[in-house]
């Protein structure tokens, strides 16, 4: 019954989405408020039905109802409850259901909190959401129905892929989808603006918070996925330039550009046409990502089963939405009036530069990801484009961007003073040079690139701090005045400073980890000692243990540094009998931002275990950086300016611009 109800709820959601895609548009055309308001009701009802459908699938997983194919394929009765729940989206059908659930969630949020939007704009936006939703409901119902039954139900399920039985699966896909799908809102706003033929600074103010929310989740989602790969795969890599990763990086790059260009549009009413294009491109890249991952076209060791009907269906969705929105753009964009003149050296100019480099970097990732596919289709040659390609293209494009980051916020709108900005960045520049010199001396020559890159990162961080000290007048005015000014600064200013500093922090982590990472690979027997980067790891006993749905071999390492005992590390190797496959559970020991990393390989006949030990200096900064960026995003989001329709304060004490 539950499965049928879930299926039925999904069909009803499709019906609602179809209504939502047509009626409000007619309403907007005929200026009929009643018809336009249909969008609000259908969006909320759609959310209700999709949530019911999702809850139904979750219930099937929790009760281990193996008469449903999807549950049988991906669950097992002995699986811990958490993984029964996360298993819902650990497979194709379920993850598509999560995709549409999040789409409906965003639609519902616009419907619920979009009361201050012009009625016709809200109708158009929700109608466009309805188109996307209809397409994906059809996709699920026709090609990937998670509620199909098996005629003769088996007693036991085939279990979830062991690699996915991890807390990472609970967090990473929902986060990533909140990001991916969140960009559908800015897409819907862009298409609505084109349909209406009207776009102004207020439009940018409405779009920005949604873009920001999506961007925050995508940032965290990518970082989380990277950390998950790092500890779960057992060889300490955190980014592989795998097409699946690139699929999430491309919308992130375009989305970051969009965030910045929307600022220009909001403040200066310029770059309108470009911002619209970026909104379309960002969501198109999200759709492309969904296509790449869900259709199985990738020449990737990622295991995605290939089913051509699905691939063709998503490709069709992709072509209709990207082609349609770009044609609409080509047709209507010229109707949008350009405004806001600015000199090349100005805040706007800096943001344009940011956009140029981000989109160019995004384009290189796009080429690197799709070129092998195109080549295989055209010539049949199979090639792989790996890290070297991206290091040679992505790196050089990010370098000038990083140098420019501290300058941007210090330039004035309209016409900036580059020399003045440079003068104010003197302290940051000196800090960077000091960092380079110290690292150079400390590493005694060696790799020349690493100290320079770290110097650049220090420059970015110090530049972000400079922006704050300049605005608060810290060190120039009495401390009390400075703190008062700091409280009065718009949250968005704090937000951008945090986010920019986060980029620098992540860069330090990346450079340190790749340059000074040390490893020990060898086979060890009990009481053998491995030495790495000043640490001593002594292998103690090796024991067998039984988990809920696996058996594991645990090795205990006693870790000490300069004779001081730090604790034990217990990496393990798990064997999952249901799928007769195994996973490597790495053990991590955190010291500050650095980590020791131990993972086990196979046991040899004479009782020795293959062991891989890494020392990764400052590796955690790689993920603290994105967390800082997301924090900056949250701060920006809390800026009162973006809370459109926030009630005007009785007295505008600080003379802040109240939201409209």
């Amino acid at each position, binding site marked *: 019954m539950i499965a049928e109800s879930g299926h039925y709820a999904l069909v009803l959601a499709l019906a609602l989405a179809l209504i939502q895609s047509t009626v409000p548009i007619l309403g907007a055309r005929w200026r009929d408020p009643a018809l336009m308001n249909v969008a609000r009701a259908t969006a909320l009802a759609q959310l209700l039905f999709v949530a019911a459908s999702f809850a139904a699938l979750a219930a099937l997983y929790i009760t281990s109802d193996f008469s449903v194919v999807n549950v049988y394929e991906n669950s097992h009765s002995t699986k811990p409850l958490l993984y029964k729940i996360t298993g819902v989206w650990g497979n194709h059908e379920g993850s598509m259901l999560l995709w549409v659930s999040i789409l409906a969630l965003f639609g519902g949020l616009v419907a619920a909190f979009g009361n201050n939007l012009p009625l016709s704009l809200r109708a158009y936006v929700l109608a466009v959401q309805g188109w996307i939703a209809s397409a994906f409901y059809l996709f699920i119902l026709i090609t990937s129905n998670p509620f199909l039954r098996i005629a003769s139900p088996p007693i036991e399920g085939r279990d979830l892929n062991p690699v996915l039985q991890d807390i990472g699966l609970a967090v990473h896909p929902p986060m990533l989808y909140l990001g991916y799908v969140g960009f559908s809102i800015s897409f819907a706003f862009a298409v609505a603006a084109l349909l209406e033929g009207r776009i102004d600074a207020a439009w940018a103010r409405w779009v920005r918070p949604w873009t920001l929310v999506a961007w925050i989740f995508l940032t965290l989602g990518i970082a989380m996925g990277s950390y998950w790969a790092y500890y779960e795969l057992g060889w300490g890599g955190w980014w592989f330039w795998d097409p699946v990763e690139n699929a999430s990086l491309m919308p992130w790059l375009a989305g970051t550009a969009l965030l910045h260009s929307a600022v220009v549009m909001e403040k200066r009413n310029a770059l309108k046409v470009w911002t619209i294009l970026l909104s379309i491109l960002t969501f198109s890249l999200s759709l492309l990502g969904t296509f790449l991952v869900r259709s199985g076209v990738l020449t990737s060791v990622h295991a995605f089963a290939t089913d051509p009907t699905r691939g063709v269906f998503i490709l069709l969705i992709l072509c209709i939405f990207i082609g349609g929105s770009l044609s609409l753009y080509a047709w209507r964009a010229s109707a949008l009036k350009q405004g806001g003149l600015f000199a090349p050296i100005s805040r706007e100019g800096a943001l344009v530069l940011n956009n140029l480099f981000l989109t160019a970097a995004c384009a290189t990732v796009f080429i690197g990801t799709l070129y092998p596919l195109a080549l295989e289709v055209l010539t049949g040659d199979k090639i792989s484009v790996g890290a070297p390609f991206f290091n040679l293209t992505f790196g050089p*494009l990010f370098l000038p961007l990083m140098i420019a980051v501290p300058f941007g916020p210090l330039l004035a709108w309209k016409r900036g003073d580059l020399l003045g900005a440079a003068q104010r960045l003197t302290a940051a520049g000196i800090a960077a040079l000091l960092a380079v010199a110290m690292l150079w001396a400390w590493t005694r020559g060696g790799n020349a690139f690493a100290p320079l890159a770290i110097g650049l990162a220090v420059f970015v961080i110090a530049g972000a701090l400079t922006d704050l000290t300049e605005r608060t007048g810290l060190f120039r005015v009495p401390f009390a005045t400075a703190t008062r000014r700091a409280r009065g600064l718009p949250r968005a200013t704090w937000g951008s400073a945090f986010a920019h500093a986060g980029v620098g922090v992540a860069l330090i982590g990346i450079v340190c980890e790749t340059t000074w990472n040390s490893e020990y690979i060898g086979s060890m027997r009990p009481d053998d000692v491995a030495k790495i980067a000043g640490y001593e790891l002594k292998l103690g006993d090796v024991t067998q243990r039984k988990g809920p749905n696996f058996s594991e071999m645990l090795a205990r390492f006693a870790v000490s540094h300069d004779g001081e005992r730090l604790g034990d590390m217990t990496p393990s190797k798990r064997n999952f009998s249901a799928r007769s496959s195994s996973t490597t559970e790495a053990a991590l020991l955190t010291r500050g931002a650095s980590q020791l990393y131990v993972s086990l390989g196979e046991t040899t006949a004479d009782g020795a275990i293959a062991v891989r030990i890494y020392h990764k200096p400052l590796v955690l900064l790689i993920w603290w950086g994105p967390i800082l960026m997301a924090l900056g995003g949250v701060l920006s989001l809390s800026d009162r300016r973006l809370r459109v329709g926030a009630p005007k304060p009785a007295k505008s004490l600080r003379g802040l611009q109240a939201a409209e």
Partner: protein
Amino acid sequence: MTRKQRRLTMIGGSLAVLAIAAALVLNAMRDSIVFFSTPTMLAEKPVAAGKRFRLGGLVQPGSLVRGDNLAVTFQVADGSNTLPVAFKGILPDLFREGQGVVAEGALDAAGVFKADTVLAKHDETYMPKEVADALKKQGHWKDDYGAKKPDYSATPAAAAQGPSPAKQGVSQ
């Protein structure tokens, strides 16, 4: 500056960045692209020693030899030809004899493929796509290599979307 000059500056700047990006891409394409090959393709079209490529095929049953200090050798076969592979390090969890594997590295002077990365298939029903395609083309594809799909045509476990660790690999 006049409006026209400003616009020209912007367009000029954009074109310059795009040109740089294009140059970087073309340059990187020349040196850092890795081709995929199987033992049979190698026999037909030899690759020079020292040139990196990806080798795919099945691990020949009974060919896996473990040496000292984590050195291993095995044969990669694709039905008609085999090629010896040497690797030093820890093999991925899912590396098995008789099953699909992709190794990245280069041939040495003696014709042994020195792999520095070994990627094994992901779960018990999955075969690396290149290997499956190559075997099909050469007529050595057996249905039991691939996904043993039940009649109701559901898919084997697919990983969640995104940079998830659904990759089995070893690299050093």
